[in-house]
């Protein structure tokens, strides 16, 4: 995980905020992908495994409860069955298949990610990445329209652009926040960027 840390980007190799942004997005995608694939693990005692499996199976007679959460007699029996199947060496998948064969797909607390049920998992991915994509495109378009807005002058309905000189006020804000930025001492940063640093309030 450490290799994907934003800090590495801020060091000497940092070129621009945009590089950081792209890097950050790539990083989050990577995390999302890894996280999706190992929420539950199997390298634990049989007992913990049977509890987790009980959480993956629904109680057939209770509304919306898993075996794990139910005190109904059938849930007790089914939990014992889960444990028995695990004791005799079955894998998690085999245990689930055992119950699906008897109770139908409905017994699984989450649909299997195969066949038609792949839809259940593809749609969320589309929603999440589609959402982030729309957000990024919106930001990009809003940036593009910046120039047009300024020239056409019609889009700014109720308020004018930023007031011309806020430097006194901003300096005060900086003092309050304890930010002491040396005024453009380094050549590598242009004035406008350090100006906007100061507006950090």
């Amino acid at each position, binding site marked *: 995980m450490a290799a994907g840390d934003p800090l590495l980007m801020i060091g000497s190799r940092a070129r621009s905020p945009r590089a950081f942004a792209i890097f950050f997005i790539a990083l989050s995608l990577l995390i999302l992908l890894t996280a999706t694939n190992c929420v539950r693990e199997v390298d634990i005692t049989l007992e913990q495994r049977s509890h987790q499996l009980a959480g993956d199976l629904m109680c057939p007679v209770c509304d919306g409860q898993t075996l794990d959460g139910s005190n109904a007699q059938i849930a007790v029996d089914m939990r014992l069955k889960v444990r028995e199947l695990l004791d005799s060496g079955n894998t998690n998948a085999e245990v689930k298949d055992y119950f699906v064969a008897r109770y139908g797909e409905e017994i699984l607390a989450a649909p299997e990610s195969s066949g038609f049920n792949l839809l259940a998992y593809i749609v969320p991915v589309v929603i999440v990445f589609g959402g982030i994509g729309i957000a990024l495109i919106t930001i990009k378009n809003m940036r593009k329209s910046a120039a047009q807005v300024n020239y056409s002058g019609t889009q700014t309905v109720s308020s004018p652009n930023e007031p011309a000189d806020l430097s006194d006020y901003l300096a005060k804000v900086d003092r309050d926040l304890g930010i002491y930025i040396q005024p453009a001492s380094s050549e590598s940063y242009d004035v406008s960027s350090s100006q906007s640093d100061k507006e*950090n309030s």
Partner: protein
Amino acid sequence: MADLGVMALLLGLALSIYAAVGAIVGEKTAMAELVVSARRALYMTTLAAAVASGALINAFVQNDFSIKYVVDHSNTFMDRAFVWVAFYAGNEGSLLYILLALALISAISIWFAPKRLARSMPWTIAILAIIQLFYFGVLSFVASPFELLDTIPLEGRGINPLLTHPGMFSHPPLLMGGLIGITIPFAFVSGALIAGNYGDDWIDVARVSAIITWGVLGTGMLLGAWWAYTILGWGGYWAWDPIENVALMPWLVLTAFVHSIMVQKRRGMFRMWNVALLNIAFVLAQLGMFINRGGPVVSVHSFAASSLGVIFLSFMLASLLFAFALFLWRMPQLKSDRAMESFMSREASFLINNFLFLAVMGVTLWGVLYPLFSDLARDISVSVSAPYFDRTNGPVLLGIVVMMGIGPLLPWRKTSARSMKQWFMWPTLVGLLTIIVLVALGVQRPIAIFAFGVVAFVAASISEEWWRGTTARHRSGDNWVMAWWRLVNGNRPRHGGYIVHISILMLALGIIGTNFYQQRTDGALALGESIILDNYRIEYVDEGESIRDDRIAKWAEMSVYEINPDDYSQEIAFAATQGSSGFTLKDSRLRENDNLIDQIEPWHGFYPDFNMASVRSGIRSTIVEDLYVIPRDFLADGRVSIAVSINPLAWWLWVSGPFFIIGTMVALWPQHAVERRPVRKRKLDDPEGEN
């Protein structure tokens, strides 16, 4: 009493019709008096709803068993304090409660509405009146709580045993109040749009009412989680149940709104977006009402199930249509004043945060609807429960926490690499260090370790801001506490937000701990036997029983010992060969290092009339972990069957509540001090005073 209630409801119905018609006609014909009269009529509906509620509560107090609702939800030996709970324990009563809450907050919000909204007030009044009209109508004609029985029974059925818990005095009212509360910002914004009031006049009203609603809904959900954890014996606090999800979805959208409304307030951007968010939240709240009242999904919360599904579905579709049409009609007028300048700006990070919240909402909605979809598309039933949502929403929620550390550190407009380095260095280091330390300590589960690193990153970013601001003020003479206090007071929306963020971090700690590191075992103990899990030994010391008319309660007195697992190495090794982490011990003699640390009393009540059990878990809670004992059953042979778990960091889930409430209140507290923004300067260039 019943007659009084029925009449009050009919009167309310007439008043709300008058208010709706009066407001619209008065506005169209420019008859100011008519609008004033409509406004007063809307105040009077509150009285009508209050009288009807009073009549129902009085019927409970008097044990008036001629009323069906009273028979169904109370009896003579019910604890009198639960009359208030019985009031909203079923479908009809909870509708009346919702109406009362709506009428009350409508009146309050209209009373306090700022003068400059005068032009759009008739429309706001009309919208509120129409929504009240819907509830008055349903209560008068379809689901009357005052329905009478032909033969009066001597005894009522009693209150649902699951509801007899202190949490029930606040959880359902807050949740229902929060859901209906979304109506207020929606009505104000829609009113402004219809009236053609496109400016930002509605921002403050919408923001304040949305934050209150959001806080109430959030608190209600937390209390519900607490209730589930302590009483239901589900062993959990959040099951991603459809009814939980339909409350979560509008809350998520409101969360997006309370963030992005700040962008409109400060930068004049995202107008269209904010209106859309409120519309979505309102429609989702109606979806919640629909699913609650006989929606087509299976849920553990079937307290208010009824046959009103079609009515509420129609109302939801109507509100969807209205919101959508209004939005499309007025969309061209809702342009932003300014353009986005950079990806690395606070406005951009707010937009990404908004889309992430909407993504969680969308995924949750998909999960709720997928079983229906599967049924319709291929006639095969499937279940979509916690494991699905953990897998799909878990990563996105983690992404939101990451954004929580990044967004607030970015300045408005744009930022530079230099500023990034300055602000992110320290939090990133802290996050990394946390990960390294946890790995070095041999902690397992990479995802959880990463999540802890993220939590540390965000905590460090908040501390950093507070540290810088506080030290600056400290240098100018304040003592540390005053310096921090002034910092918070200087910009309450921002720092209240940080306090809420801290509460979310606590919640995250609890969620990570309980989801990734929970240990469990089951067992059946006879008196004198113990069960051992990790470094706890729980001995079944004594049993208790009490039989009342409505229930048979049994409880187990148990002593909790902290043990040194070395003393039990033989047994532990044997249990391990059986694949167990916990085991039962017949011999109750103490060993060398056994140390009595607590007494717990898991309680199990059976209610024959309802054929329903209600349990109270025995919990020993510490800041590090909870030892949690669910009494599953008292067996015929005298043993008690229990499920024992160690829930790491669960304590933090409940501590987050007060912080959430305090943070929300700080953010809401009216700002008298000069705000930390160029208000005065800007006003010189901005004659309209809008910015």
